[in-house]
């Protein structure tokens, strides 16, 4: 594994120690990127299928996070105002997925994850990357990673809507309040994880206080910044857990909608 690829121009540049191996690492450095590829591909395949399925995303009173906010007249359920009717080949999910997709695609953590595992740039530390040229995030299209803060703000709107969905799931199938099932907990947990993921965001950390140079003049913002910094240290964990959270929440709603399982009802 370590010597099959010839050393690229990089570590072979004139003047450097002449060592042919691409890396001299002896540990299994490729395991981490391989797992990342596996999990992300599985998520992409699953979410693509679900986004085009256009069914089994709503079952009283639960809606799948892939289809919320559901904004077209084709929508099942009443969780969001129906704003317009689009062509029938576009599912309600397709209008909205750009926000969570853009948010995660431009996330500093996911960037690290896919630059390493898909781009192999670098696949692991001190393992040479396969490409000869490299311009980082300075040019089109990667310079657009700099819009991340706007996706962060849009993501907050989505978090609010998904929290609202979780609140609505305290109604029973006839719309009366005072119901709670396992699905309610699933929706609540999903919304909580999404908030933790968003609030631990690096752009969030910058916006709440990171951009200041004089914390002492802004005690409130300093407190926010301290709190967000604590969450930020776990951003990677929140990124993964909330990703699983969204997929499993959707799966739970789908299983209910297809009648594969029935909701466990607490009251």
């Amino acid at each position: 594994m370590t010597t099959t690829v010839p050393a690229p121009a990089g570590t072979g540049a004139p003047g450097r120690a002449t060592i042919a191996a691409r890396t001299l690492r002896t540990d299994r450095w490729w395991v981490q990127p391989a797992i990342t590829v596996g999990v992300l591909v599985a998520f992409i395949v699953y979410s693509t299928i679900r986004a085009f399925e256009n069914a089994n995303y709503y079952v009283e009173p639960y809606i799948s996070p892939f289809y919320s906010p559901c904004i077209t007249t084709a929508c099942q359920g009443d969780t969001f105002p129906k704003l317009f009717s689009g062509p029938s080949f576009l599912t309600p999910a397709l209008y909205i997925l750009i926000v969570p997709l853009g948010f995660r695609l431009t996330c500093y953590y996911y960037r690290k994850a896919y630059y390493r595992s898909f781009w192999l740039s670098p696949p692991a530390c001190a393992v040479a990357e396969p490409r000869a040229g490299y311009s980082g995030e300075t040019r089109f299209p990667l310079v657009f990673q700099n819009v991340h803060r706007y996706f962060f703000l849009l993501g907050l709107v989505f978090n609010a809507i998904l929290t609202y969905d979780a609140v609505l799931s305290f109604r029973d199938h006839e719309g009366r309040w005072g119901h709670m099932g396992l699905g309610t907990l699933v929706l609540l947990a999903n919304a909580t994880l999404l908030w933790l993921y968003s609030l631990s965001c690096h752009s969030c950390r910058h916006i709440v206080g990171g951009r200041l140079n004089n914390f002492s003049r802004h005690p409130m913002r300093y407190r926010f910044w301290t709190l967000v910094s604590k969450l930020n240290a776990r951003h990677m964990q929140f990124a993964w857990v909330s990703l699983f959270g969204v997929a499993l929440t959707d799966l739970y709603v789908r299983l209910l909608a297809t009648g594969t399982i029935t909701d466990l009802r607490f009251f």
Partner: protein
Amino acid sequence: MTYDAKLRVWRGDADGGELRDFTVEANDGEVVLDVIHRLQATQAGDLAVRWNCKAGKCGSCSAEINGRPRLMCLTRMSTFAEDDVITVTPMRTFPVIRDLVTDVSYNYEKAAQIPAFTPQPRDADGNHRMQQVDVERPQEFRKCIECFLCQDVCHVVRDHEDNKKVFAGPRFLMRLAELDMHPLDNLDRRKVSQENFGVGMCNITKCCSEVCPEGIHITDNAIIPLKERVVDRKYDPITWLGAKIGRRPHS
């Protein structure tokens, strides 16, 4: 306990060299640098190796051990099995001088190019004042021992010699962040960070943070905040406009 450790050490200079095998005695509690010193004392009197403190504080003994950038004095022999072959090479990002010693001038050149600390005027009583909470962030970066392991591992220059012209490397992006966050500094370094020192070249893959012997969160606490500051200045129309009409001073 004493055993015979198997070492593979790169010997050579700018004209070429190779990995050579040695068997050297190792004792309980030793670090790789001890064994390299014994190799020098008993079998390879002319082995070039740079070191000073043997305590992880001077940043001299940087090398690559089994392919990973590390301080030789902080790498315990006990992390390897007795029959492991331990490969020690010089840092592979900088020109080699001889054996384990590299020419790290690139780093000093970059350091010299960074606009120096530019303090605001003193208070009326002639003092500079700042609060502890305001300097806490920059203080983390002052732990740096300038071992340049982060510069060595960073793929931007490790794999692309050409980028050395346009990229200052994690250690010096961190220096820019330190100054830009400093409560008394008056210079706006955001534009030069992007245009002269290449913060946009970093793709935040965090190898610098992984190897830093001081455990500095280089990427999370210095480079990403610096990137966000650059966005304020160069890419975010709303923040930029706010600053233009004076609603948002850079303070």
